[in-house]
């Protein structure tokens, strides 16, 4: 079974006493990056504070050959057990190919390291029409707008699912599929309007995302609201002949050094609860096919 394999790696690795590497959906088998080869946690071993003779482990026999937990400082000054988890690369509603190795105490992330697995780095699906336009091929503005709207709805669907709103996420995805399938603007606009009203005016969603993941471009709430605006503008310019003003407003901006997005994620998730970290990652939604993001491989 998948789990057993994962656990074997863990036991030898000495990093994880809980047995599980991240998520059950993670396929440990056949994925060289998931198995611990380079032991990314070596650094942590040095950090485990001595003076705790109880948790030191020594030569004690542990159940199922699991390693003893390490302990490190935490925000409450209790020096509780630390657990190493791997989020991704295949986790439901998780940016495909992103691997976040985290050390948690309870459900609070203390350290994080982002890596990528399997991203092609040769161009995002969502950028494809604008890339073609840049190369001088004939591309209508509507084509770019359609892809942009689809991208925003795609990201939105993932964020809403993580935020625990499957109904709204389903609506976003349905509209995304229809838009990419060529839904005329006259039909798309009212459906998008309903979605925007529903999601944009949700006070609970706004309360739950305000102040999370504060970065240069605002917090999680600011990001999803921008997605909504972008989608509305894109759908409005579906029939436009010119290339619309909407460009790909991914978190990765032109001019950002490679790997900056991953670094931002690492910084933002440290100190947050697991659920908050999921929301932050979903709100940044890195596309690992984008060469600007896939720069750093694990």
């Amino acid at each position, binding site marked *: 079974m998948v*789990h057993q394999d994962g656990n074997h790696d863990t036991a030898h690795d000495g990093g994880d006493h809980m*047995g*599980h590497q991240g*998520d059950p*959906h993670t396929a440990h088998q056949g994925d060289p990056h998931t198995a611990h080869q380079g032991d990314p946690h070596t650094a942590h071993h040095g950090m485990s504070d001595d003076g705790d003779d109880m948790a030191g482990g020594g030569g004690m026999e542990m159940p199922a050959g699991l390693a003893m937990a390490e302990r490190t400082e935490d925000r409450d000054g209790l020096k509780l057990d630390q657990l190493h988890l791997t989020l991704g690369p295949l986790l*439901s*509603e998780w940016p495909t190919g992103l691997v976040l190795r985290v050390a948690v105490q309870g459900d609070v992330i203390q350290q994080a390291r982002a890596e990528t697995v399997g991203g092609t780095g040769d161009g995002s699906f969502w950028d494809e029409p604008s890339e073609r336009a840049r190369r001088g091929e004939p591309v209508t503005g509507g084509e770019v707008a359609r892809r942009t709207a689809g991208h925003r709805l795609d990201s939105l669907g993932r964020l809403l699912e993580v935020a*625990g709103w*499957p109904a709204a996420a389903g609506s976003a995805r349905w509209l995304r599929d229809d838009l990419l399938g060529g839904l005329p603007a006259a039909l798309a606009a009212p459906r998008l309007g309903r979605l925007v009203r529903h999601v944009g005016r949700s006070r609970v969603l706004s309360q*739950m995302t305000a102040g999370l993941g504060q970065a240069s471009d605002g917090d999680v709430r600011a990001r999803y609201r921008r997605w909504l605006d972008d989608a509305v503008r894109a759908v409005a310019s579906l029939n436009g002949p010119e290339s619309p003003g909407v460009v790909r407003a991914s978190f990765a901006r032109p001019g950002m050094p490679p790997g900056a997005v991953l670094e931002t994620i690492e910084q933002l998730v440290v100190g947050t609860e697991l659920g908050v970290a999921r929301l932050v990652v979903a709100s940044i939604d890195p596309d690992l096919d984008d060469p600007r993001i896939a720069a750093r491989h694990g």
Partner: protein
Amino acid sequence: MVEPAPWWAVLVVPAVLGAFATGAVLASRLLAARASGAPSRPRAVLGGMCDDVAGLLVSRRRTTLASDLVLWRLGVVGVPVAAILAVAVVPLGHWVVDDLRVGVVWFNAMEILTWAAVWAAGWGPNSAFSLVGGYRMVAQGLSYELPHMFALIGVATAAGSLQVGSIVAHQRHLWFVVWMPVGFAAFLLSVLGFSFIGPFDQPAGADLAGGVLVEVAGVDRLVLAVGRWLLLAAGAAMAVPLFLGGGLGPGLPAWAWSVLKTVGVLGALVATRHLVPTVRLERWAPLAWLVLLPLTIVQDLVAAVVVLLR
């Protein structure tokens, strides 16, 4: 007006509760299907549910390394058992399995059993996400429990009794929901809380890939998932005698009123699930303690004053 049912009611109660729960699941799936453009004809929805149930029945259980199998199974089974035990005091029209003199406290005790059950279900598989889900249930319980208790205390104060039958009888002239709306709202929120459904589904949250549900597969998953919906149905059924006058109503027989009202409450709860995203505990707990709790206490004060003046 509420009388103990014959012994075979013990067999009927789980079936009736299951029927309500099934209805709630179907309604929820119907809403989800309509929102996401999936086929939403009743037959398609029903078929989808049957497929899922059958799939769980034939799929294998999952084993994890160093799991605590005893507590895991106890926790999984504990959830539906608590739901069924809780409705033992809930009257359907005139019938009730046992109208205990301390029925309200009994319901409360069974509801709290879900804390232990869900925690154990999260603890058992020795998996991080599952464990975090279990802990979230405890945190959620600590947030909703006091408003829930004060809502119950308000009702018991107004009726001067902890017996559900007597509480119904006291609403002959006016339903409690009319002058205890805060208690009613707090009660409904806590129903969503203890069945960890809808806006309060953080213990089984999507951000944990399913939380306490992560590692349960096959029959276990079915039992746990069904348990949640049974709890939701039990909570909705209990709201009816507590706040909506139970089987009281003109024209129709008492049982029909009970069913109608329960369906109404259940429908409102299912709709809430679809209209509101998950409420995260770190933001909900302060609200529950600093706003909802004082409000329910004031509500109880109102109830006490009304009883004194009456």
